[in-house]
């Protein structure tokens, strides 16, 4: 009976491995099962490798187009795609190894193989070494999600690639058609364009990043894409493709008419769906919602008392850091601690050029929540010394606050290092901060972070580095509401 555990986590992505580590820290005899590589999609074929590629492409682009403006003329710039991919892989391997060490250091048992529920308390785990049974008092399902396919396009990671195949390409394609203008499509499009591919995006709706990002932010990115030579086709429904010699012809419907696009690589990035059709979850009667996510309560418990689910498979937003947060939460719930999912915001970051990051609510969401009177203002990076000196003046910080109380409701950033700036906004929102709290916190100069303070000032109506209407009162430093 060596394979009996207190807690068994299935899936070693950013949700699962965090849950396993915390479970082990809390004294549970813990196992974690992974069918592919430790770290899951995030570390191996998602967040981390794409950031490596994006950094490399950004570097190349700067060397080619911005360095000369600074008086640095670099000749003979050459891209060795094979070496780039090797380096990217080394990044992933290093991080995955780190996860392995952490799990082992915390005495969690790592089991390689594909798990299927035999019944509510027993898993059968198939690997190259054969099949073994694992039983546990509690299970945490953290098996994530996978790319969606559409009719006419089957992902084979060769002709039609998901992000996984795109990140593994050792040769830079000359012409790429990207189906889907969501965040994964845009991130890959931007770096491929910077590396030198001709990129064309086919988007079924009439906007990029629909529903996930602030419209003003998206506009800045759309302008930059155009500059990079990325063509975006809206209202375009990809239907099928045929092979023509070494390249492909993609047929799409645009406003009722058929249009043909040529490419020598097709990327399909139309979204992801939960892996809830696997593992025999239906056999043991796990309840799913209409989108295929496992239904969980605020403590991540499924309809079965001994089974919990976290991360992508447990619902939107499908983001690694949400999964990790839930991983800690669920382990502490199992240990009898008084925990519940109670985060006010899951910040989101998109590594386009420039980056988009957000915390809190969109303007429309504020209205839905009953905040009728809002204060909204933007502070541009063009007015920030550090941004200009980095030659990254595009973008802004936009803040939304409740007009009555000045309580911060949403922050949307598009600009340099937006991904690194947003954590301050997330903290401010979790703390229930008011605009004054941000404005009165001394931000070091010269940094991009000053834009947070300035945006708060701007939203209060009196930014320093931006011309706004005159102050109403001289005595108390402005129209600050005191509630």
């Amino acid at each position: 009976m060596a394979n009996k555990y207190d807690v068994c986590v299935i899936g070693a992505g950013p949700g699962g491995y965090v849950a396993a580590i915390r479970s082990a820290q809390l004294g549970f005899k813990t196992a974690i099962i992974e069918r592919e590589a430790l770290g899951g999609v995030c570390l191996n074929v998602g967040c981390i490798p794409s950031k490596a590629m994006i950094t490399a492409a950004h570097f190349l682009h700067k060397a080619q187009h911005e360095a000369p403006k600074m008086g640095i003329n670099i000749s003979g710039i050459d891209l060795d795609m094979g070496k780039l991919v090797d380096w990217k892989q080394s990044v992933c391997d290093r991080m995955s190894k780190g996860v392995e060490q952490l799990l082992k250091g915390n005495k969690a048992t790592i089991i390689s193989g594909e798990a299927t529920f035999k019944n509510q308390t027993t898993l059968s785990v198939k690997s190259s070494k054969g099949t073994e049974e694992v039983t546990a008092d509690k299970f945490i399902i953290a098996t994530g999600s996978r790319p969606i396919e559409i009719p006419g396009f089957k992902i084979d990671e060769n002709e039609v690639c998901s992000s996984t195949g795109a990140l593994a390409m050792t040769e830079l394609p000359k012409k790429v058609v990207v189906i889907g203008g969501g965040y994964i499509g845009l991130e890959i499009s931007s770096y491929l364009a910077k590396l030198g591919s001709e990129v064309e995006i086919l988007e079924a709706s009439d906007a990029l990043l629909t529903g996930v990002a602030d419209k003003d932010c998206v506009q800045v990115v759309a302008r930059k894409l155009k500059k990079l030579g990325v063509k975006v086709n809206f209202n375009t429904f990809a239907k099928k493709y045929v092979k023509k010699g070494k390249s492909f012809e993609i047929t799409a419907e645009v406003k009722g008419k058929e249009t043909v696009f040529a490419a020598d690589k097709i990327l399909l990035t139309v979204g992801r769906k939960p892996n809830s059709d696997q593992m025999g979850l239906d056999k043991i009667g796990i309840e799913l919602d209409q989108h295929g996510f496992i239904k969980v309560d605020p403590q991540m418990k499924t309809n079965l008392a001994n089974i919990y689910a976290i991360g992508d498979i447990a619902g939107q937003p499908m983001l690694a850091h949400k999964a990790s947060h839930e991983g800690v939460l669920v382990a502490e719930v199992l240990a009898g601690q008084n925990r519940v999912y109670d985060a006010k915001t899951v910040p989101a970051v998109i590594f386009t050029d420039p980056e988009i990051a957000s915390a809190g609510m969109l303007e429309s969401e504020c209205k839905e929540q009953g905040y009728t009177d809002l204060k909204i203002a933007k502070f541009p990076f063009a007015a920030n010394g550090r941004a200009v000196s980095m030659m990254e003046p595009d973008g802004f910080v936009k803040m939304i606050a409740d007009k009555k109380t000045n309580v911060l409701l949403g922050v949307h950033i598009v600009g340099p290092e937006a991904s690194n700036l947003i954590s301050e906004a997330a903290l401010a929102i979790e703390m229930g901060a008011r605009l004054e709290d941000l404005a009165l916190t001394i931000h070091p100069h010269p940094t991009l972070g000053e834009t947070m303070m300035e945006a708060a000032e701007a939203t209060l109506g009196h930014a320093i580095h931006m011309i706004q209407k005159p102050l109403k009162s001289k005595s108390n430093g402005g129209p600050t509401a005191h509630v």
Partner: protein
Amino acid sequence: MSIENVNLPDIGEGVTEGEMVSWLVAVGDSVEVDQPVAEIMTDKATVEVPSPIAGTVKELLVSEGDVVPIETAMLKVDTAGASASAAAAPKTAPAEPVANEPVAAAAPTPAANVASTSTIQPPVASSKVLATPSTRRLARELNIDINNIPGSGLAGRVTRDDVLSKSNGAGAVSAGTPMMKMPEIKVPQFNGSATGGEERVPLRGIRRKIAQQMQMTKQVVPHFTLMDEANVTELYKTRKKVKEIGASYGVKVTYLPFIMKALIATMREFPMFNASIDDNAEEIVYKKYFNIGFAADTPQGLLVPVVKNADQKTILQLAQEITELSNKARDGKLALDEMKGACITITNIGSVGGTYATPIINHPEVAIVGVYKMVDKPVFMDGKFKAAKVMNYTVTADHRLIDGAVAANFLNAFFKRIENPSHLLLDMI
């Protein structure tokens, strides 16, 4: 040779220390994984502490009677020679909680605790609540719905202090000092008989806990007791009928559920009986919930299991829960949580004997109701003597909060219900 310490595990439920009652192993004994090694007494429950490792006991680091903080090393075990199979020997009985259930919940063997978590469903702060994440967590840990706390800070911010003061208000009364400073009492020396004829037994475990609690309460709370006799002939008849109906559900319906219901209805009328005094804050804490404790005489001593939210339960449910709790109390299986949070206590010492008693209040409650034996008595009614079922009741109250006349009115209001069970129908929710 590898010597490892076995620590007193975190027993959970806010317990920070336990008193060593007795060792279950001696130096030189071999222990298995999960074998109980010591009996520890915490807040009225005696629990067994299992060893998380296998090996040979080398040294006992604490003595019987010591008060041991959690995470303190209790004994040294030589793990050399413990066979691997013994170390891995799984213990698979978390579903059936034994007397040491709270200890099994501790860090080394958390499996048992897993089962108990399913009922916790703390409230989530709504998007409008202004409070820091740590404050929101604090509220949850104190079982307070932060959505219901009016924030005292800017823009309605709920502060840490708001949560803490609400917590005191919710009945988690601090053990603080009484509002009146007590003179230090010098306990006179006990001089044993010079000629022997005495036996000395250490004051330990539940007995010591009872001694401390009673002494503290008698010192802090000015008690007074009111006594009266109720004609419960109607109740007797009603209960006789109901007992048969209950039996068809497999439930033994005693008088206690009726007494509880009558008491709850009366407490609604007299809210000061459902209150506590927070000595530190010099505040009266009125409770909006009705948890009723009942004294149970057990082989280990007096225990007070608590029926939680008794106002929301039917007589049948109450009867069932009382039976369950009594059985657990008798078998020493009550969880700490099942003895906490009472608003008022009922003691039916009378079922054992005596016409009247002057019970001691279960602090921080402010009253205790005594129930005595039912007897047949002639009662002079409508010009003649009639046979009646008569029962004595006492109400003992904290005079700091409750005056004599109020207690008399309380007892009258209670009698109105207990003498006429139909009245309970009017109080039904």
